Every structure is written in structure tokens, then in C-alpha cells.
């Protein structure tokens, strides 16, 4: 972590707004989120479907599909403003500085070309002078690094000849082949069996230690987050509602939504007769996002002010903040006590 301080931040996202201009109206998928990432840091982004977590990742790579557009904010990668990249700059940026792996390895590989072909293509897109043999050698090295055996044979095979877990490994190899500084993993384990999930996570941890790259790990599974991430951002309805170091999030959760997520997870050590406690209600309609806190209708601690105004961030710990009126209330209570004291003093 210390090494990052001199180079500055790897990635800084400031007040990002992403909207989809559909025939039905403007869907505000991401409503102003900010975070930053150090070199070598692993951040988890947790949220339900529709919370905007994938969209903000796509906007980092310029992969937003129309009718989606970035309508506000900035994304700065190694000091450069990504949103202002020209087409050529973006093409050389993707894959070499930032790589992305996706959820469904079944459909993410082109079925009519061999794995070797697709790996070599990824490499030659950024390194124009490399010879074919060298490129193939590099590809095979990568495949070994991600734990694939029989590399020579595998290079000539087609995607449908690989199992799901293997395909995801190939995707990881493809992402890492140009040694990017940042890897964005969009729910990489969701479509895999549980045992394979564990393997892939182990692999990613190992690779991260080796390459010291930053990872943004998008998932809806808190369990996965605990294993691999250094810090966590919890997203709801296009906003980050809580953000902090992973231990803080798990042991000192400061937002009702996070608490709800934690409570709804089945636990190995729970008594068998305990019911799972779900979060009541349904996600927000992003076409007409309400004023006030988006989680309010589902929150058991909802207050009148929650329905009227969006809560501000409150720092509840070291680098740990939460956007909740409860925290504001606590803060105000603390502060007013303090003020009284101050006032008294003055």
C-alpha cells in the first residue's frame, strides 16, 4: 500500500453520473458516485442488480452501450481524464492499461476462433511488433499461469471444448496478457459452480499478489468480497451508500442496507431453525428516482427526513463513510453536545 503514495492514485472517480436515454425516459443508472483506488488495491463493489455497479465499471472502459451515456463527473486514471480520450487513445487504453472480465464465460469467447487465436489477438492489438512465435509463447505462458494444463493442445482448441471454469481462466489470461494496471472483474464467479468459484478466487488472489495490479471486483455476493477485497463500496440505486475497509463493513456496518445484506446471508454457524431475514420491498424504479434516500421505503429505521432529502456522507471511521440520516442524527447529537460545551466555553 505504501508504494502507491508516491505515484498518486491509480483511479479516481469523482461524482460520476451515467444515464440511459430510453424511449420511456431518462434512466439515471448511476447518480453521482465517487471513489478512488490505489495501486495494488482490491476494491469490491457490492449491490443488487440494477444498482448501477456494472454500468460505472463500463464507463471506466468506455464500454457503455447506447443509449447509455456519461452525463457528468470525471474518471481519472493515472492522472489522465479517461472521459476525454479520443477513439484511438481509448482503443489502446483498453486491454493494455485496464482489462475487464465478464460474468458469463460461455458467451464471452468467440466460438469460431481457437483460444490461441484469441489470446494472440489480445496481445498483438497492443504490441504491434511482436512476432507470431513470441506471441504464442507469451499466450502459453499466460495459460500456464492461470492453471491450464496441456497448453500446447489447448491453444488449438475452440471455446466450446473448454469447461466453464476453464473458460473463465482463459478470460483472465486474456485480460492479463498485456499486464494491465487495473483489472475490472464484473461478477466473474456468479455463473460458476461453487467449487470452481473458490478456485477462480484463489487464482485471482494469487495473481494479484504476483502482479500487484489493482482490482475492482463487482459482485452481489458479500462472501466473495470478504475473501479477496481490501475495501468495499456498497451501492444502492446508483449511489454508493457505504464505503470503507472490508473489516469495517463487515463488523461495523453503518448503513441499514449493508446490515440488511449481512443479515440475509445464510451462515454456516447459524442455528438451523433461524429464519433468513430478507430485505423487504423491491428495488427502486430508476426512471423516476425519488428525492430523499432511495432505500427509505425498505428501511426499518426510516424517518420523515429520509423521505425528503438525500442524506450526506458521514465519516464513521477511518476512511469509512456512510450516507444515512441515522448517522447524521448521531453526528448532530454528538456535535450539539460539543457545541454546547464550546459555546459554554466561549
Amino acid at each position, binding site marked *: 500500500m505504501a508504494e502507491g503514495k508516491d505515484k498518486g492514485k491509480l483511479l479516481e472517480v469523482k461524482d460520476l453520473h451515467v444515464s440511459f436515454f430510453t424511449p420511456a425516459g431518462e434512466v439515471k443508472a448511476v447518480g453521482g458516485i465517487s471513489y478512488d483506488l490505489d495501486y495494488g488495491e482490491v476494491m469490491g463493489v457490492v449491490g443488487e442488480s440494477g444498482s448501477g455497479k456494472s454500468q460505472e465499471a463500463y464507463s471506466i472502459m468506455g464500454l457503455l452501450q447506447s443509449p447509455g451515456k456519461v452525463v457528468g463527473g470525471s474518471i481519472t486514471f493515472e492522472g489522465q481524464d479517461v472521459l476525454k480520450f479520443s477513439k484511438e487513445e481509448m482503443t489502446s487504453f483498453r486491454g493494455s492499461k485496464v482489462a475487464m472480465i465478464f460474468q458469463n464465460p460461455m458467451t*464471452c469467447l468467440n466460438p469460431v476462433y481457437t483460444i490461441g487465436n484469441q489470446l494472440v489477438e489480445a496481445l498483438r*492489438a497492443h504490441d504491434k511488433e511482436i512476432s507470431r512465435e513470441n506471441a504464442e509463447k507469451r499466450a502459453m505462458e499466460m495459460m500456464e499461469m492461470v492453471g491450464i494444463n496441456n497448453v500446447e493442445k489447448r491453444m488449438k482448441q475452440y471455446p466450446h471444448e473448454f469447461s466453464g471454469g476453464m473458460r473463465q481462466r482463459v478470460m483472465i489470461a486474456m*485480460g492479463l496478457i498485456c499486464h494491465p494496471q487495473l483489472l475490472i472483474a464484473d461478477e466473474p464467479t456468479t455463473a460458476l459452480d461453487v467449487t470452481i468459484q473458490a478456485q477462480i478466487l484463489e487464482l485471482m488472489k494469487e495473481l494479484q499478489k504476483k502482479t500487484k495490479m489493482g482490482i475492482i471486483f463487482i459482485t452481489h455476493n458479500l462472501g466473495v468480497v470478504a475473501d479477496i477485497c481490501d475495501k468495499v463500496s456498497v451501492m444502492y440505486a446508483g449511489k454508493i451508500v457505504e464505503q470503507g475497509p472490508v473489516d469495517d463493513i463487515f463488523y461495523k456496518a453503518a448503513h441499514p442496507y449493508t446490515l440488511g445484506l449481512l443479515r440475509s446471508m445464510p451462515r454456516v454457524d447459524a442455528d438451523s431453525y433461524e429464519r433468513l431475514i430478507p430485505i423487504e420491498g423491491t428495488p427502486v424504479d430508476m426512471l423516476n428516482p425519488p428525492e430523499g434516500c432511495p432505500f427509505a421505503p425498505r428501511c426499518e429505521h426510516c424517518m420523515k427526513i429520509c423521505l425528503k432529502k438525500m442524506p450526506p456522507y458521514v465519516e464513521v471511521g477511518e476512511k469509512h463513510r456512510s450516507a444515512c440520516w441515522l448517522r447524521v442524527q448521531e453526528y448532530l447529537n454528538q456535535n450539539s453536545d460539543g457545541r454546547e460545551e464550546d459555546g459554554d466555553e466561549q
Partner: protein
Amino acid sequence: MRLLRSITKVRVIIMGKYVAKRLGMALVTIFLVTCLTFLLMNAVPGSPWLSEKAPSEATLAALNAKYGMDKPVHIQLLKYLQNLLKGDFGVSLKMQKNRAVLSIIGEMFPVSAKVGAIALCWAVLVGVPLGCLAAFKRGKLTDSILRVVCTLGISMPSFVVASILLVTFAGGIASLKIFPTIFDASAGWRSYVLPCFALGFYPMCYTARQTRSAMLDSLNQEFIKTARAKGLKNSKIIFKHALRNALIPVITYLGPQVAFTLCGGFVVESVFSIPGLGRYFVQSIQNRDYPVIMGTTVFLASFIILMNMVVDILYKIADPRIHLTKGGE
């Protein structure tokens, strides 16, 4: 290594099974069409000789005996099938008296085939790029224009296209008279331009539409997202990834296009006076020359069915996913 060899062997076996199955189906279909043709022709009241001077009873009986038309229908059918297998399609009874239908076909079919092949070639060579263009510029003006033009193209029956072309370029407007009205194979390439264009217009528009939707499908696939995330150039994504996947369905709809071109050829040949099988077929219909009608139908139907089979097999070969999955249906 042994695994690889056995995988290849399995592929060959599966493909072989598929080819045999398709061939069998094709033969069954051809057989059915032949029977249907024969039965229909025989169900037609009156006999081919009645339009001429009414022959006497004795002559009728003699003619019937000579052509085997006095035996029961199923025996006639059997005989006809036997003859077919020997290559005997019967003889023309009206248009070219006593000339073997097969030799007529042999003379006329190559002309039709040539015109048809040229038409199909240009249809595919122009249709596929246009379809890609429309898919790429989807939603914009180019796309809308192309879509309307192609829909227009598949809405105009070939006789409409042929007649308009003739009138515009070969006669009506004197200044544009650059192509001949009557087809003359020996007069060089000019004669081929209008008929091939007219014949290929529908397949071109159809191909463009199908390519467009196949490309759009292809561009919506997840692996395109991966390709973009890898940082590949746009042109590479379209031509290497999307197009290759989109072209596989192109093969599938080539089959029906062959059939359509052949049938559309009837009209085009009539309008442009091309001495091909299509025009002859039309004339035989108008003249009720039943052996010719039958023979030509069986021949053309068999050709189309076999072409469809070839196309289906090609499709299976082109898609590597099919190799290891059983049957592939």
C-alpha cells in the same frame, strides 16, 4: 495425441451420418414430388392427343398402347419411375414432337444455369456488404434507406423488375437504349446485364436483409464486448469477429435462394426471350405438353432439393460448434 485422433474420427463419423441422413431425406422428397407430379398429370382429364384433330377410336387405342397409357395408374407410375432411373424422361408430345425430354433439358438448362449463377453471384457479392453497412450504421439514415430499398426489392415480383428494366434501358426511353431487347448469347456480355440484374435483384435484397439481421445478432453477442474490452480496433471487431459469425447463417439462406432464382428465372427468361429451361417450362404449361411439364418439374425439383441438401451440409461444416455435439440438429 490419441485423444486428438479419436476426436477427429468422431467428427468424421458424425458428419458422415449426417450426410447419409440428409441424402436419404432428399431422395424421399424427390420420390414424393415425382409421384405427385405423375398422379397430377394423370388426373388431368382428356389426353394429350385431344386438342388435335380428334383421332378415331382405333388410333386412340393404338396411341395409348404405344405410350403405355392404357394400363392402371400404379403400373404406369412404376414404369415412369423405372424410366426415370434409366434417364428416360419421356418425349415431348406437342412442342417438339418425339424429342426426348432429357435432351431438351440438356440443351436448355445450361443457359438458365449460367444466367442464374451470374445473378446469384452478384446478389451475394453486393447483398452481403450492403447488409453489413446497414447493420453498422443502424438507426441512421443510411440504414433506413437501405432497409426500405431492400424491402422494396423483395416486394417487387421479378416480372415487374424485368419489365421496368426492359422498358427503361432497352426500348422505351430512346436515349437509354444501351442494352439489347432480345437475348443473344453470342453477342457478348451486354445481353447478360439486364436479365442477370433482374433475376438477382430479389436475392440481393433478401440477402442484404438477412445479413443485416445476422450482423446485428452477431454484434449483440457477448464476445463482441470482450473484443472491445481487449482494445481491438473497430474494423477488426466487425470484420474478424462479427462478420465471420454472421456469415454462417448466410449459407443457410442460400439454399432457398437457389430455388427462387430458378423459379424467378421462368419469368425473366420469358420477358427477355432467353432460350432457357424456364421459358420452355412456361411454354409447356401454356401448351399443356405434359411429359415436358413432368420431366422438367422432376428435374428442377431434384436439383433444388439436392442443392438445399448441399447447403445444409456446408452449414454444418462451417460451424465448428456442431462437430462435437451429437447429431447437430
